[in-house]
Each structure stands twice: as C-alpha cells, then as structure tokens.
C-alpha cells in the first residue's frame, strides 16, 4: 500500500505543468518543426511562430463582402524591403539590420542561402522542394538532373560526424566531363517535365569530373554507390570509353553546383533570387513556411533531428520552444530577441495536439482552450448561433476524383452527367451545414483578379440528355459505379446523398466503399477506384496551387486524366508576366478541366474556428491563417 501511495505521488507529480496564457488546439501532433521537412497546416501554425521567413503573409486591407480580410505577403519579417527587376525574374531582398536569432546571432543573407540549399538538397528530401523550382537551376540541384558539361559539386565521404548530413564533407567543384550510366532498360529514369517529379539519374552511375585547381587540371571518376556494388562493377567492366575508371572512388554526392543556382547572398544583408520566369506569386512562396531559415551552427552541432529539441533549438520567430510533450503540447514562450518583440503581446502559448473534435470542443466550452481550430461538423448548426464562432469561406475545395481510365467513366459525357445530377445545394444545406458554398468550379472564388471556371448547375434534364448522348439512355447499360471514401461519418453522409441523386436522377446503381485512411491513400495512389472523395487546401492565394495538380502524371493528379493542351497552358502561365493574361490562361485551363470533368467539385470549405471573446486580433481571412504574434488577450474579456 505504501509503495502504491508513493507511486501515485510520483506519477501525479511527473505531469504537472500549469497551462499557458493562451491555449489552442492544433488538431494533431505536428510531424516535425523543421521547416524544410514539414508539410501541413498544423505544422505551419507552429513553424510560423518559431521561425520567420523573408516575408510574412499577414491579413492586410479592407474586408470583402463576406467579411474576409485579404492576406498579403509583406516585408514585415526578416526582410524589411525587396525589389523586383523589371522583367520580374530577379528578386533582391534586404534583410533588416536588427534581425536576430534567439541566441543573439544576426540573421544574414548567408543563413538564407544555406537554409535554402539544405531545403533543396536531395538528401533532405523535402516534400515541398518543388516550391523553389522556380529559382534558376534549383530543380537540377534537387533532382540531380545532370548533363555532360554541367558545373558540379562533389561531396567526399569525410563528414565530420558520421551519419549526419551537416556539416558536409569536403566539397570540390568542377565540371562534369562524362556521365556513364547503365543501358536504358536497367535504369528507371523518368522525367515528367513538370517540375514535380523526375527521379533524376539512376543511382548506378559513374561521374567523370574535371577539376581546375590553380592551373592544374585533374580528372577523376566518382560514384555515389559503394565500390563493391554489382551494378557499378558491371558498369566499369562494360565501359569502353576514353576515360580511365581504374581510380574510381566512392563519394557522398555528385550534385549540380549550388553556386550556379539562382540563390545568392550578395552581402550579409542582400539576398538575391533569380527565377526561370516571372512568377507573380513568388512572394507568396517566400512567405510560406518551408522557406523559413534554420540556424546553421546549432543544426551542425546537434544534428538533423536533435536541433529541434527544446533547449537546443535556435529560432528567429516571435516565439521560442520551451517544452515539448509528445502528443500533448508544445509550450511556446515569447522570444525577446525577435526584431518586433515589443509588439508581440502573448507571453506564453500552449499548442495542444487533441485529435478528438468532441474532446476539443468540450475543453473549449469548459474554458481550457481559447481557440478551437476544428469544432465537430455535427454541432456546427448549434455553434453557428454563437458570437464566438468565426467562420468564412476560404481557399479549399471538397471534390470527387473520377478515375478516367475506368469505363464508362472514360467518357467525359458520363462524367459531366454525373456532375450535373448532384444536388450540391442540398448537401451544403442538410449535411455539412456550416455555411459552405456549393462548388461550380474547382478554384474557390475570391482570388485576386481571377474569375473561376464553371461546370454547370444542378440540372437533371441536361444530365439525362448527356447520359443518353453517351449511349446510356436512362442509365441503361451502365455498370454499378463505386464511390470510395475514407472512413468518416461526414464523408459517408455526402456519399449517400450522391448515391441517391445518381440513382434517382440517372438510374445509375451506386455502391459505397469506405477504407481506413492509410489504405484509402494507397488505393487512390494505385488508381484502384472509380470515384473517390478528395479535398484540397490551397497553399497560397493563386489558382496555380489548384490547377497544376492535374497536369499529366502530376503526383497529385491520380485521375489518369491527361490533356496536352492543359499541360501546355499551365506551363505557359508560369512564364506569363502580364497578370491579366496569366489569369486568362488559368481561367481557360480551368474551363477545360471543368468541361472534361476528371473531378467533380462538391463544395468550398469554410474555415471553422471557435475563439474566446477575450482574444483580440483574430481576423477571418481567405487563407485561414492566424499568426500567433498578432493575437493579444483582453483582460476585461469574458469567459465563455
């Protein structure tokens, strides 16, 4: 009994941590707080508090008719100003003189150049690396896309800390004389030409590099495989070219020389980025968290994973990581070294990782949370009546993917008929009920200067006609169509309504299949479905974030849909410097997407937030971003 008593005291003491000044639920445990490796909205909330990029996307300007404040990337961050060259391809950022890391070091252009190099480095394997492929030669560096004659950097196998990526081993720079690869059928080289994929060159390659060190030229052969590798030995044996492979040595990496990538520190405070083409939304990307810098010295000292730990992490954002409890909370405290510290009002913040929406709402109603980011859908009609419910349409679309390789869905007429036979208004009014907007296009309305495409209203007669035209009058001859969704009540309810609509309006038999999340993703990826539920949240306020998904074989396309005109249009928009013409191209492309209908838009999401009335500075906006450093607490405010 005594032991048990002691154990209880020990156990209870272990977890004690009084709540912070401001507590909010982030919805899930963040995957990582390393900007280069993170993806996802919850990660963004934390990383934007701990780190700061050159620009920041902040609510700015007058609210629109729906009460949404526009968000704009502005130099109210590490950069205090930036210039764009006349042709729109060279950005020069001026980093503010008083920008400091939390340990007192100055934040410099060199920090950014190094961090972006790390972000692009193939070994980092950043999922977002394509966001920076707009910079000149960046994709060559990241995808190891090498050709003979290219400048290269060779990293030797002499890393100071074994098994740790940084500090790097000795890097030698030269030019690639020859690239020796196994015959084509062995190497699975692939390049989809859209900057999203392409696995570069096969690992089993030999690089012959010429170094030009101080008037003496040397030529050496390298491989990134071990010398005992069978493929490499076979390659050496079968090689009949002019180069001497007897001195072949094994190295860590042979990459496109980063000095030739359009990312440069001109001085300690001048940072220059050269783009392939004018990219009007490049400032949006610069403000996006994957491009936030990390502190080189602490990363090199502690390693790629350890440097994110409380006590070791060095940040440049408005907050510091004080404590981290896995699947419980991150405790943030104000960073006094932050350049704008006097204007950061919150002293401490708890970021909770509660997955259950009900529990989270319970805690909010009970006063344990100041901000609930995910109230349960079923209770929205009730919550909507409350003053502390902050909701507005934002840049996200709920849609169905249609597998265009499965007959009869390979026929665009059938796909169009299916779209027109869905009563989206009813879904919005009686299922999701949060003020969502029925979607007649894929790109949500509200983007500056963009007029969305159009896929038609709910029109049963027209749908019937289209189906008859496709050769299935009154649904005769159509096989059963299967709707795939990941297990969740809300998805099932919507699928059931659509099932009824299609049956009633078109005479099509529909079956439902639900799969657990992990299995669902896999099924979608291999294309083993007919119609599948999907959702997409825009990364930035530009149609590109939605439309470039559906280029041929794009990793997120997953519908097998392919249209070369569409691919060309999306590519053309990249190089278009006139914003009006660019938007016109996008609109035309979206219309193509809507006409061929590899996707069926259902509704546009609304942001759902419960915010305690004592919280000030919380503005509804198009991207549903609420930077923590702009919030403050009104001590007079009421508890709910």
């Amino acid at each position, binding site marked *: 009994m005594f032991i048990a008593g002691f154990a209880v005291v020990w156990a209870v003491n272990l977890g004690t941590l009084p709540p912070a000044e401001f507590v909010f639920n982030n919805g899930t445990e963040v995957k990582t707080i390393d900007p280069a490796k993170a993806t996802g909205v919850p990660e963004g909330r934390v990383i934007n508090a701990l780190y700061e990029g050159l620009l920041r996307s902040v609510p700015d300007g007058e609210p629109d008719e729906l009460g949404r404040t526009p968000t704009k990337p502005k130099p109210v961050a590490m950069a205090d100003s930036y210039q764009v060259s006349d042709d729109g391809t060279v950005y020069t950022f001026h980093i503010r003189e008083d920008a400091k890391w939390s340990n007192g070091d100055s934040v410099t252009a060199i920090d950014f150049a190094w961090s972006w190099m790390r972000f692009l480095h193939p070994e980092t394997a950043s999922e977002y690396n394509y966001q920076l492929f707009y910079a000149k030669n960046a994709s060559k560096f990241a995808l190891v896309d090498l050709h003979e004659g290219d400048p290269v950097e060779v990293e030797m196998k002499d890393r100071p800390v074994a098994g740790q990526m940084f500090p790097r081993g000795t890097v030698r720079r030269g030019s690639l004389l020859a690239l020796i690869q196994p015959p084509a059928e062995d190497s699975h080289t692939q390049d989809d030409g859209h900057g*999203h994929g392409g696995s570069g060159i096969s690992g089993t390659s030999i690089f012959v590099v010429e170094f030009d060190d101080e008037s003496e030229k040397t030529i050496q052969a390298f491989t990134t495989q071990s010398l005992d590798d069978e493929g490499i030995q076979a390659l050496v044996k079968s090689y009949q070219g002019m180069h001497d492979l007897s001195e072949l040595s094994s190295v860590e990496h042979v990459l496109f020389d980063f000095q030739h990538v359009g990312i440069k520190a001109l001085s300690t405070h001048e940072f220059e980025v050269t783009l392939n083409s004018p990219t009007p939304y490049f400032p949006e990307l610069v403000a996006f968290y994957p491009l936030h810098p990390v502190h080189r010295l602490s990363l090199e000292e502690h390693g790629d994973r350890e440097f994110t730990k409380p006590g070791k992490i060095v940040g440049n954002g408005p907050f510091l990581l004080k404590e981290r409890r896995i699947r419980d909370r991150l405790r943030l405290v104000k960073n006094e070294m932050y350049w704008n510290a006097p204007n950061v009002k919150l002293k401490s913040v708890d970021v909770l990782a509660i997955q259950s929406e009900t529990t989270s709402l319970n805690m909010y109603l009970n006063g344990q949370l100041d901000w609930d980011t995910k109230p349960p859908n079923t209770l929205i009609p009730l919550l909507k009546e409350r003053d502390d419910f902050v909701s507005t349409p934002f840049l996200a679309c709920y849609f169905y993917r249609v597998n265009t390789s499965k007959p009869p869905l390979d026929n665009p007429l059938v796909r169009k008929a299916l779209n027109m036979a869905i009563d989206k208004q009813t879904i919005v009014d009686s299922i999701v009920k949060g003020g969502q907007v029925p979607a007649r296009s894929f790109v949500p309305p509200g983007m500056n200067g963009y007029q969305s495409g159009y896929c038609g209203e709910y029109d049963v007669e027209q749908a019937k006609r289209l189906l008859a035209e496709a050769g299935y009058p009154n649904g005769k001859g159509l096989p059963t169509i299967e709707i795939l969704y990941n297990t969740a009540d809300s998805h099932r309810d919507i699928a059931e309504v659509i099932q009824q609509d299609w049956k009633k309006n078109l005479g099509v038999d529909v079956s439902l299949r639900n799969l657990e999340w*992990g299995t669902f993703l896999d099924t979608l990826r291999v294309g083993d479905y007919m119609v599948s539920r999907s959702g997409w949240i825009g990364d930035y306020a530009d149609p590109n974030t939605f439309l470039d998904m559906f280029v041929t074989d794009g990793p997120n396309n997953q519908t097998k849909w392919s249209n070369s005109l569409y691919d060309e249009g999306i590519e053309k928009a990249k190089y278009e410097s006139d914003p009006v013409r660019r938007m016109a191209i996008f609109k035309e492309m979206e219309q193509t997407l809507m006409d061929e209908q590899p996707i069926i838009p259902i509704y546009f999401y609304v942001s759902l937030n419960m915010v305690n009335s004592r919280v000030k500075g919380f503005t509804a906006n198009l991207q549903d971003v609420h930077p923590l450093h702009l919030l403050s607490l009104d001590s007079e405010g009421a508890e709910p």
Partner: protein
Amino acid sequence: MQVLTFLFKRFGWMIITVWIVFTVSFFLMRQIPGGPLNGERVLSEAVRARLEARYNLDAPISEQYFTHLWNTVRLDFGPSFKMQDFTVNEVLAQGFPVSAALGILGMVFAITIGMTSGVVSAVRRNSVYDYSFMLLATLGIAIPNFVLAAMLIVIFVFNLQMFPAAGWGDISQIILPAFCLGAPFAGYIARLTRTGMLEVLGNDYIRTAYAKGLSPRTVVLKHGLRGALLPVVSYLGPAIAGILTGSLVLERIFVIPGMGSHFIEAAIQRDYTLAMGALLTYTVLLFVMNTLVDLAYSIIDPRVKLE
C-alpha cells in the same frame, strides 16, 4: 533457488515470445495496404526514393527484417516515421511514465474501492450495503469504460464543473480517467473479495478467533482478509492486462499522451517503427507483470509451487 530457476525459465520464454511477436507483427504490418510514406499529398518519385533509402525501406524485406531485428536486440527502435523530431525510444520514454501513472492510479482505485466494498458486503451480508455495492459492481463490470467516461464527463465536467474535460498536466486531470480505468476491475475485485470473505468467515479458525475475544475488526481485517486475498491476487494478472489495454481507449478520450495514444496512432499512421516499439514494450510489460503476480501468489499461499 527455486525462485531463481523460475525467473530464469520465465525470462527464456519471454525472449521467445518477444521474438515471435516481433516476427509476426513485422510481416503483418507490411502486409496491410498503405505505408508510412503515404500522405494526403502524394510524394514525387524523387523524394519518395530518397525517403525510402533513408528509412531502409528500399532494401529487400529479408534484409529489412534482420537489420530491424538486430537493432531491436540492441534496444534501438530507430526514428519514428510520423514524428520525425523523435526516435521511437524517446517517444516511449515520454509515453511510458504517463501510462504508468494512469495505470497505477487506476489500479489503486480498483483495489481500494473493490476490496473495501467487498469486505463490507461480506460482513453485512444481505444488507442494503451489500445489495447496492453488488449492483454497482455489476454495473461497473457491464458498462464499457468509454461509456462510463462519457457519463462521468457530462456529470463531473459540465454539470458539477469539478474536473477539466481532458488533458494532462495536473492532478485534477488524472482522476476521472483513472477512475474510469479502474471501475470495471473494482467491480470484479469487490465480488471476488465478497465471495472469498464469505467462505473464510465460515471457517472454524474465525470462530476460534471470535472465541478468544478478539474484536470483530481485528478478526475481519487480520484473519479474514488474508484468506480472502488469494482470489483477488490471482485476478491481478488479468486485471493488469485489462488496465493496459483499457488505457488505450481512455487515453484517447481524455487526450492523455501515453503509450496507448502512441500505439493507436502508430498503427493508424503506419508508423512501423513506433508501432513495433510500443508493441514489444507491451509484450514485455505483460510478461513481467504476470511473473510478479505469480511470485506474489506463492508468497501469500505457500501451497502454491513455482513452476
């Protein structure tokens, strides 16, 4: 000496069990569709290839098995797939004490409430106390812990506002989940104690004790309880197993960052390394607990031989 042989044998069996659990779950995990690298956004081929290489997922499955097995033998479970800032060992090190705290408190609730009401029921047989305690015990056993949790949240969190709804960080947050966890076992223990007690109280030596003039309290607590403990102790083995698995559900409801939460999430997210780490920890834990219960049993009742 006998104890040492017993422990040694048990240890041997544990190693074999752990190895079997490892092997079966290693291959089962890789059989289910989905994988740790799948997310809502699809990775480009280049990034996927790099990540597979980083986690050794591109090696032949037999090679993966032996590498992972060797690392496991060295107690290195590797990095977590889905919480990239942590190794599995770090996750377990943070989660284990939390679950242990919850489990211990749940167990303490179960034993104290269960034994007290059991003894009272036996001594006051067929009284109002007896009937109401046994009714409660039956309810406690019958109601699943997540239903109980929902009821208690409504009563204590919203109506009486005595406890916070969920979370982990101070004493008030541990009471409700620990109670829900312990309740069914308190029910069982109450019934076992009552039965054991009734049997013992009918024995001759109890009558002798009363005849010697001992007070009823001494007779019940000193002579009666000891005999009645046996069934309770033998029930502790399954109870500990039940507490371990029960906390899986409750940790989720009450948002407690313990082993259970990590285990469930790891399985859902296909976090191979973390799922394996948690699974093996549970295996070892169950084995150790059962061994301890067997040891305790032999101490309380010398007739029991350790095998």
